């Protein structure tokens, strides 16, 4: 009967929207790294812990009175709530019960509620004995009056801080990565301390006026000597005892050196990972950025231009030398092979990346990275560089949106310069924004004052702007001459004054930067005003 009731309750919980939602909300607050609530909660808890420790220290010599008591109680309530909530969200007891129940039904055996409950409790116990949970508990327990002696453990509240900061986790990761070495060292150290304390006890205990009266004294002396602290409150008197001391000192020097070198090596190994983690964390904050694969000469040029535009980007390169150079310039860089799926994924190709640039000097790498990127994200824009003309089609097949041939572009410019130096300077000047004259596009938005107007009515000449043409995908314009197919759209060069603009058309105009901006502002203003009056 009871078991039926429990199973029914479990089903109820599983289907209850409110229950699942509230559990999810608590999870977001306490554990979900991506949730903004967690960072607020962490900050609040850090503040609370620090404040409670401050009270504790103040309390040693002063009487905090009722305020102190209230505060202590509040802190305690918060800690207990946190502990219980964490215990709650660690596992789903009702799910475990249901699983057991369904299993029993499937196998057609008797459902034992005790068995199921036991499994659920074991799961909860798993949490209770985890290091963080123990620290949490130790931070709460000393507040219980009969256990006042455990006040020392209130300091454990400081350890609770580790829960809210990533660096502590990193430190424990580093230590655990060298688990084997540290364990060996620990065993050896224990052995040494044991031998040293036993032998000093044997040699010195019999000495009249000797300081070593019991095994604990011997152990204390061994530890103080071994750590090279050497208070000098206990000293050996016999020759044999002094020999033990000499041997212990030399051995412990070796152990300390070994210990330090293990830690340093571990940190050194983790350093690149640490740096990369910071890069990933920073990338996660960006909504839109560019992934540059390859930081050669071309990559350097692009990175410099992009950083001038304040556009966010991340560089991936597998060559140490390039990575160092990028780091020196202060760019975000990942030292890895961009053709690996996980590298691109953790760089954010499926999350915030708008464009991938494959611009290494090697066509094989470019094709491979292009292929990988396209496979991972169907919509990302991919621009690739090709060094040999015969590979252009391979890159398009691999999924590149644009393929750049550096030698073709440069050759074209060189040939242009040879034949028509003035025209060359004009066009490169405009295209590369080296002059005050710029070329820009202006979209005819829906409801804009430009819509349904004839080109002649715009009086662009008076505004000191020159219209090069109109880009449009609208089939209504197809009757006009001078059209050039550009991808899915047409470019209407030098349209006649009777050309009527439709929405979604784009004007290609050139002129001084501020004339263009002024014109754009006017158009935008009239559009907003028009909407208001409508």
């Amino acid at each position: 009967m009871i078991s039926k009731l429990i199973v029914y309750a479990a089903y109820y919980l599983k289907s209850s929207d409110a229950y699942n939602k509230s559990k999810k909300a608590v999870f977001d607050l306490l554990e979900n790294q991506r949730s903004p609530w967690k960072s607020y909660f962490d900050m609040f808890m850090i503040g609370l812990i620090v404040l409670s420790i401050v009270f504790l220290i103040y309390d040693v010599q002063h009487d905090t009175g009722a305020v102190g008591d209230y505060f202590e109680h509040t802190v305690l309530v918060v800690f207990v709530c946190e502990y219980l909530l964490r215990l709650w969200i660690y596992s789903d007891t009702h799910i475990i019960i249901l699983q057991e129940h369904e299993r029993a039904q499937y196998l057609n055996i008797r459902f034992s509620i005790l068995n199921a409950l036991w499994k659920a409790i074991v799961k909860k116990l798993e949490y209770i004995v985890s290091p963080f949970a123990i620290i949490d508990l130790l931070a709460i327990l000393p507040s219980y009056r009969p256990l006042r002696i455990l006040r020392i453990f209130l300091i454990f509240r400081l350890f609770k801080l580790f829960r809210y900061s990533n660096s502590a986790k990193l430190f424990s990761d580093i230590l655990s990565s060298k688990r084997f070495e540290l364990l060996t060292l620990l065993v050896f150290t224990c052995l040494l301390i044991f031998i040293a304390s036993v032998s000093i006890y044997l040699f010195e205990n019999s000495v009249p006026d000797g300081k070593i009266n019991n095994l604990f004294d011997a152990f204390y002396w061994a530890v103080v000597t071994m750590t090279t602290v050497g208070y000098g409150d206990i000293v050996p008197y016999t020759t044999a005892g002094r020999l033990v001391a000499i041997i212990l000192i030399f051995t412990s020097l070796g152990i300390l050196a070994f210990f330090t070198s293990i830690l340093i090596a571990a940190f050194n190994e983790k350093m690149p990972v640490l740096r990369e983690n910071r890069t990933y964390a920073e990338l996660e904050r960006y909504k839109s950025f560019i992934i540059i694969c390859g930081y050669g000469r071309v990559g350097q040029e692009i990175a410099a231009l992009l950083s001038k535009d304040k556009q966010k980007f991340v560089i991936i390169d597998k060559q140490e030398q390039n990575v160092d150079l990028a780091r020196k310039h202060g760019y975000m860089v990942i030292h890895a092979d961009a053709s690996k799926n996980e590298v691109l994924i953790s760089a954010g190709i499926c999350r915030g990346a708008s464009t991938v640039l494959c611009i290494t000097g090697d066509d094989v790498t470019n094709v491979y990275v292009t292929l990988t990127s396209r496979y991972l994200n169907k919509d990302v824009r991919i621009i690739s560089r090709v060094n040999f003309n015969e590979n252009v089609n391979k890159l398009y097949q691999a999924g590149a949106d644009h393929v750049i041939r550096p030698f073709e572009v440069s050759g074209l410019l060189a040939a242009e310069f040879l034949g028509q130096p003035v025209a060359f300077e004009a066009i490169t000047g405009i295209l590369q924004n080296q002059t005050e004259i710029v070329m820009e596009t202006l979209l005819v938005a829906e409801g804009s004052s430009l819509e349904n107007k004839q080109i002649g009515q715009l009086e662009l000449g008076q505004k000191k702007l020159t219209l090069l043409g109109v880009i449009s995908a609208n089939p209504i314009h197809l009757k006009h001459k001078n059209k050039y197919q550009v991808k899915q759209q047409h470019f209407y060069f030098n349209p006649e004054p009777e050309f009527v603009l439709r929405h979604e058309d784009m004007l290609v105009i050139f002129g001084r930067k501020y004339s263009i901006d002024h014109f754009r502002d006017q158009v935008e203003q009239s559009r907003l005003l028009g909407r208001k009056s409508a």
Partner: protein
Amino acid sequence: MKQVAVFGYNRLSYEVVSRLDPENYRILIIDLDPVQIALARDNGLETASIDFRSDEDLKSIGIGSGIDTLLCFFDQDSDNVFLTLSARALDSELNIIAIIDSPESAEKLLAAGANKIIDPYEICGRKIHDMLKRPDITDIFDHTVFGQHDLHLAEVVLPENSYLENSYASHLELSAKYNLILIGIVNKQISDKLHFVVEEFDRRLSVGDILVILGPAREIRAFKRDVENEFCKV
């Protein structure tokens, strides 16, 4: 006919040479590597096998006499600098275009006397940046001016006795008459600097001025023909 000497036959020089009209240019390829020389000859180009380090050899192919333009397209920046220096000493009027591999060589080459520096990596970087920043305009130019479509940029020098002499730039009305767009004008009497039409609206044209125009090849040809014609006005 212009005479062009190309030092170093590689992918870049191949691209340049293939874009130059053989009717207007006499091209001579010079390379130290016999394999490259053979390749150039296979492509139907005139070649010469000389040591660029010797002034006598340079003179022998016409530097200082017949050659108008020198392309220093060696892979090594130091070779290009050396060649530029030697050639500039032989001919102070020579038009020297050089490529660079590392950016710090640009100043050295300019100091050595090069007229124009081409940095393929920089150009490629700028191009990709342009694609990111202004994809529409880059697309248009790639397909038209730099691509297959018939839209070209041209410069037209105003000859003597042209009907356009002494007329105002604003009165040209190229877009209506020829379907051309006037981008800018170089007023030779004042400086070599290009003035964009949009900013200096009214300007009286004189002989020697260069008009930079954009339009289909047919219209450009028609305009060039008319410019040279004294009586076109009527």
